[in-house]
């Protein structure tokens, strides 16, 4: 029987929400890693039992957790399930060292700080885990300060793909309000060497050689709040989405503006259209309709909550420009939550389900492509991320 598993990362732990294909009756498991910040968790497309988790703490730093049984049990990669803790030598599953080697690395340079001065690169945490489309043991990690890491041994060890940090524009990259995180990683299913990433606030980049070299793909983005609004670097890209059957078409929620590219990011054009506000964080694409998009408009960069206290998803069935509000089942008043950049996902069942989580601890689900919504849970800690696994 088909079903879905919704992976929810929160400020105080991880939760796994499960349902059959009807998506009406839900089982809630968790909290896992209670008390820790879970920035992101995501399952492997090649093995749905394999799930990677970014677990982090201001006190104890970064950890990586993994499940090989669909979220029932967890372990730090390198310490096998049931194994005594004495394993030695330990596998450094939580060591994210910038590669400064002469062979494959780049010098550890500086980036722009909030006040415009230069600041050294410092690892802080993993924002996003992106498992390979084909190999459960291969996974990418987007980190703060912005860099891309790769593991080919199931998360037991990591090495930096230093060509991105060494792009040469690093001194112009600067942190967004939440830090200088690499938050979006998109793998092209038609070309294993092509990958897209996005950084707040540097912009979007693409590699066509498996991560060795990178090209900034920000032409057409316009950000009036930076010194050169049309600069190649410095745009606060909040999230990017792609339909796997059309890997050259990208949709972006920038700080302000919904943007679209039809040429793999070479050129962007604005498709905010009739949205009441085009500030926001999330953006996603319907599983079966590549021109159907979802965003959650947020009032402004100074007021991170929905307009007029009404939580609404907006849907475009035309690839942008024309948007319709979706409100059935969502709060109609007194709602002042935010929806963070990695907190929306779609399932791939015949009737596409759409999910998003809020900083107020609600996770909403729509089993009918956004027409109607209901909360799966209402009182979790602030939701950082939502991912969905479609189980056959």
């Amino acid at each position, binding site marked *: 029987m088909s079903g879905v598993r919704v992976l929810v990362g929160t400020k105080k732990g991880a939760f796994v929400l499960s349902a059959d294909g009807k998506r009406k009756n839900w089982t809630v498991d968790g909290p896992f890693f209670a008390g820790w910040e879970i920035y992101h968790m995501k399952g492997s497309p090649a093995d749905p039992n394999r799930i990677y988790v970014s677990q982090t703490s201001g*006190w104890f730093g970064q950890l990586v957790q993994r499940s090989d049984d669909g979220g029932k049990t967890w372990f730090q990669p390198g310490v096998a399930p049931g194994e005594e803790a004495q394993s030695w030598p330990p596998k*450094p599953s*939580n060591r994210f060292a910038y590669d400064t080697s002469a062979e494959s690395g780049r010098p550890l340079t500086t980036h722009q700080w909030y006040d415009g001065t230069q600041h050294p690169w410092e690892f802080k945490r993993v924002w996003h885990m992106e498992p390979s489309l084909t190999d459960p043991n291969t996974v990418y990690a987007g980190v703060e300060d912005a860099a891309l890491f790769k593991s080919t041994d199931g998360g037991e060890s990591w090495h930096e793909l230093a060509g991105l940090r060494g792009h040469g524009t690093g001194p112009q990259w600067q942190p967004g309000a939440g830090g200088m995180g690499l938050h979006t990683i998109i793998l092209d299913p038609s070309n294993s060497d092509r990958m897209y990433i996005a950084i707040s606030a540097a912009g979007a980049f693409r590699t066509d050689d498996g991560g060795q070299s990178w090209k900034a793909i920000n032409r057409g983005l316009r950000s009036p709040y930076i010194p050169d609004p049309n600069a190649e670097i410095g745009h606060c890209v909040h999230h990017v989405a792609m339909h796997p059957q059309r890997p050259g078409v990208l949709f972006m929620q920038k700080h302000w503006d919904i943007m679209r590219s039809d040429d793999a990011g070479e050129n962007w054009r604005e498709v905010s259209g009739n949205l009441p506000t085009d500030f926001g964080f999330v953006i996603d694409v319907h599983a079966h309709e590549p021109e159907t998009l979802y965003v959650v408009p947020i009032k402004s960069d100074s007021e991170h909550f929905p307009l007029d206290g009404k939580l609404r998803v907006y849907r475009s069935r035309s690839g942008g420009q024309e948007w319709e509000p979706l409100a059935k089942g969502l709060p109609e008043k007194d709602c002042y939550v935010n929806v963070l950049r990695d907190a929306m996902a779609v399932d791939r069942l015949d009737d596409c389900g759409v999910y998003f989580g809020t900083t107020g601890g609600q996770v909403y689900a729509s089993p009918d492509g956004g027409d109607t919504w209901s909360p799966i849970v209402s009182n979790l800690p602030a939701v950082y991320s939502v991912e969905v696994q479609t189980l056959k």
Partner: protein
Amino acid sequence: MRVALPYHLRNLAQVGGEVTLEVTGAVTIRSVLDALEARYPMLRGTIREYETGQRRPFLRFFACAEDWSLAAVDEPLPKAVAAGQEPFLVIGAIAGG
């Protein structure tokens, strides 16, 4: 000798209370943490930074009611700690709030 860990690190190491360790040679902050990480490899990187070996900034070390957070890591800890009469404390740097 004995080490008392904060709640989250006890969970991570899958231990209930204090940890008992055998430390060879001088009992110092460095040798205690080396032994702790050898016994519980899941704690590597959580108390001291991988790259620098430095104590993570929001953690503090105490022994025999004294603050050892800023002490040299190779300085011998008090005899009562080395003998296991008193624990070496790893504490999250929050007193309340």
